[in-house]
């Protein structure tokens, strides 16, 4: 009597030497991916250790970012990261949903190819080119048109006060919104498409208008779109070059969108090569570790949401 063992859930077992070697060697590289992530976490922890030991959790809540006195508190930087990416999300998500609905429900089918090509193109433009455009086109426009307009009409609000530099939080928010829009829109579009077509037809047959049938679909895919937005958030939080080039790079907590600000990624990019003391470098690595942890959490949540969407429709089908 003999059992074919089904070890590792692999679909095939063999005593063929080539096969065994093949599984081992590809498995080794799969392990490399895993080891790489662990190694990254460890390296950063090791590099950040002096800063962690000196500042502890105070690193996250103190606002002293002072290389001269070697005092490092990342609160303004964390604040800038959260505010810039959240505001970008606020602009991008509604637009993305609009675009996704347009592409999946309204646009004629011939538009599909050029539209997906455009999305690809947008996603393919390097961050530093967005930054270049930001410096020479977006920032002057904000300085000369947007900020004067806002301070004249809404200047009583704390968000729109101060001198119009152009460089600052507002520019960073706008450029981030442009950059994360294609990601959120294209994932949302795929998710909306994954809803079986008969659901829309059922709604239409009951006398619903097109919009009402779309609304039914959107309600179905809520968590998927939330996941797509989280992926966009993850991207915004880690976005470096474009933000560094337009945000003004000053660790400042201010209600005004006109003021310069800082993000974790831009602080690292901007100061790492200039950091002279060990504690300075250690603090920057500490910042990288915080950024690493935050993006992992955001991405894990996002994947879970998008995956749950996938599975939902697979079982329905």
């Amino acid at each position, binding site marked *: 009597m003999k*059992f074919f063992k089904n070890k590792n859930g692999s679909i*095939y077992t063999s005593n063929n030497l080539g096969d065994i070697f093949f599984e081992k060697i590809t498995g080794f590289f799969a392990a490399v991916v895993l080891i790489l992530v662990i190694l990254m976490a460890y390296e950063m922890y090791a590099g950040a250790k002096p800063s962690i030991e000196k500042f502890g959790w105070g690193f996250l809540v103190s606002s002293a970012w002072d290389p001269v006195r070697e005092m490092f508190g990342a609160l303004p930087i964390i604040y800038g990261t959260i505010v810039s990416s959240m505001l970008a999300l606020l602009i991008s998500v509604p637009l993305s949903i609009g675009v996704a609905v347009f592409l999946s429900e309204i646009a004629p089918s011939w538009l599909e190819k050029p539209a997906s090509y455009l999305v690809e193109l947008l996603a393919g433009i390097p961050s530093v080119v967005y930054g270049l455009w930001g410096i020479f086109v977006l920032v002057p426009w904000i300085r000369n048109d947007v900020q004067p307009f806002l301070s004249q009409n809404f200047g009583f609000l704390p968000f729109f006060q101060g001198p119009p530099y152009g460089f600052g939080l507002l520019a960073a928010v706008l450029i981030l919104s442009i950059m994360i829009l294609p990601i959120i829109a294209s994932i949302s579009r795929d998710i909306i498409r994954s809803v079986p077509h008969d659901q829309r037809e059922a709604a239409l047959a009951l006398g619903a208008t097109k919009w009402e049938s779309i609304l039914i679909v959107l309600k179905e895919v809520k968590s998927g779109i939330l996941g797509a937005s989280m992926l966009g958030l993850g991207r915004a939080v880690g976005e470096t070059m474009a933000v560094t080039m337009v945000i003004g790079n000053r660790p400042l907590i201010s209600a005004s969108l006109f003021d310069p600000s800082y993000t974790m990624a831009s602080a690292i990019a901007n100061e790492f090569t200039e950091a002279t003391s060990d504690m300075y470098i250690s603090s920057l690595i500490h910042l990288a570790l915080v950024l690493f942890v935050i993006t992992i959490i955001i991405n894990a949540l996002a994947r879970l949401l998008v995956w749950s969407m996938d599975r939902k429709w697979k079982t329905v089908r």
Partner: protein
Amino acid sequence: MEIKIAVKNLNAFYGKNKVLKNVSIDIPQNKVLAIIGPSGCGKSTFLRCLNRMHEVVGGTVQGSIMLDGEDITRKDPVLVRRRLGMIFQKPNPFPTMSIFDNVAAGLKYNGKTDKKETAEIVEKSLKQAALWDEVKDSLEQSGINLSGGQQQRLCIARTLAIQPEVILMDEPASALDPISTTKIEDLIFELKKNYTIVIVTHNMQQASRVSDFTAFLYMGELIEYDATKKIFTSPELKQTEDYVRGRFG
């Protein structure tokens, strides 16, 4: 009559689901054995156990399958499969290969590289599969562009090229039109001179036309196994008679 494959107490599982229960069959050499039974009776699983394909989809097996006196459940599946070729329900030529490369695929990946010999075997196999005259001028074209019947004969040629001893056919004509089906059946008649053939079919007429022996499976159990003539004219069991007369299944 020589026995080519002796199956003893074969049990097959998908996970905890037992799909074959204690099946024992002696398969005679150079004859055609037809396996019949309603869908889900385990006839395809039985076939796939014979060349160790059952485990490819994650199944497990208990019992013994003796091929010329050797238990294939204890041997390297790669070697087993070279001796038992398989034809699938849907014709499935390799989409990235030409007609020639399709037939040569088994040879090439089994380490045979002599070009002249390969060309000879390809021609011989295509002739055996009664396809040579139709494709001899288009050997470099993709196999995908052939008709369904031609594709299936291409797959048969591909299997013949590795010179197996047994050919397993899993409803080889069920996706084909009547004329192509006739061609395949004629082919089976020719092939049994040199090969032992096991064919799974849900088509009763086909079973009675092409096979020498017939086994009737039901719910994973072997109900009756005898000469085809006997099964279709005067089976021992009422259950078998009901099935071959089309009263259930």
